[in-house]
């Protein structure tokens, strides 16, 4: 039956309210309200809990998150402390809101871009890497990569000079590598040990 549900002005419900159909809250509800239909919190209504409905109209006080799959409307007498999320949100002048307001799409729409976002940077990264093809710096690819972005702007001469520099530098670390590596490692360890000692003493 399409009979509307009403929680009267002198009625207190402490617990969860769920189901289908519409509900008008004129009394107090201490608990979550989850309905598929419309929910109206009247001027005398007070809700302490999250409300989820297709269309939500608030004239009273709500302490909790509001979620409307269609719309959330706050009348001028509304007082809301909590987050609001709905594709359509209306806040009348005089209404008090403290919380995060988000006019995002429905839950299903909000979840789809969230899944795509972490995927996009992964796809962009591999595409960008094969784009700059330079056959010369095969011996030292890690050090030559940052220089690839600079040479394209200057003429061929500069690019050739850069390649020469890359070639000159590439053999240098190759020969002294077994001799010189120890010195740079030492300061790194000393920094770490100092910090650890300070933390340990404190």
């Amino acid at each position: 039956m399409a009979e509307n549900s009403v929680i009267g002005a002198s009625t207190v419900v402490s617990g969860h309210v769920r189901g289908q159909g519409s509900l008008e809250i004129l009394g107090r509800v201490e608990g979550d309200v989850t309905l598929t239909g419309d929910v109206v919190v009247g001027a005398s209504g007070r809700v302490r809990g999250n409300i989820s409905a297709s269309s939500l109209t608030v004239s009273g006080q709500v302490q909790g998150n509001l979620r409307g799959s269609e719309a959330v409307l706050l009348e001028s007498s509304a007082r809301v402390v909590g987050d609001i999320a709905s594709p359509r949100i209306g806040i009348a002048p005089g209404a008090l809101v403290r919380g995060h307001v988000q006019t995002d799409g429905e839950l299903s729409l909000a979840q789809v871009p969230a899944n795509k976002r972490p995927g996009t940077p992964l796809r962009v990264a591999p595409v960008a890497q094969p784009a700059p093809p330079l056959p010369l710096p095969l011996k030292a690819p890690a050090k030559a990569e940052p220089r690839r972005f600079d040479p394209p702007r200057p003429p061929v001469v500069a690019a050739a000079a850069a390649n020469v520099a890359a070639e000159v530098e590439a053999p240098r670390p190759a020969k002294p590598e077994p001799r010189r590596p120890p010195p740079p490692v030492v300061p790194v360890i000393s920094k770490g040990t100092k910090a650890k000692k300070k933390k340990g003493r404190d």
Partner: protein
Amino acid sequence: MAGTVIGEGLTIEGDITGDEEIVIHGNLRGRLTTRDAVTVGSTAIVGADITGSSLSVAGQVTGDVTASERVDIQAGGKLVGDIKAARFTIADGASFKGNVDMEV
């Protein structure tokens, strides 16, 4: 108009307290306390202790009932639980199981 109406399709898990009339067509699990009349419609399924001035049952109720005036079980109604009320009627076709105390 009734003060509080729990429509069909609505489920409340918890306590309901009030001073006004309460009509239930949906589901209720918990406790129900009011100073006015309580009506349990034919589509209602109530698993709760009920306290009120009077109670009319056309649906299913499981729980103890305390009424300051009267309890009526309509035809088709089902009540399982103890009843404490000054007046108590069971219509033909109603089912009831429990103790009755009419010394209120």
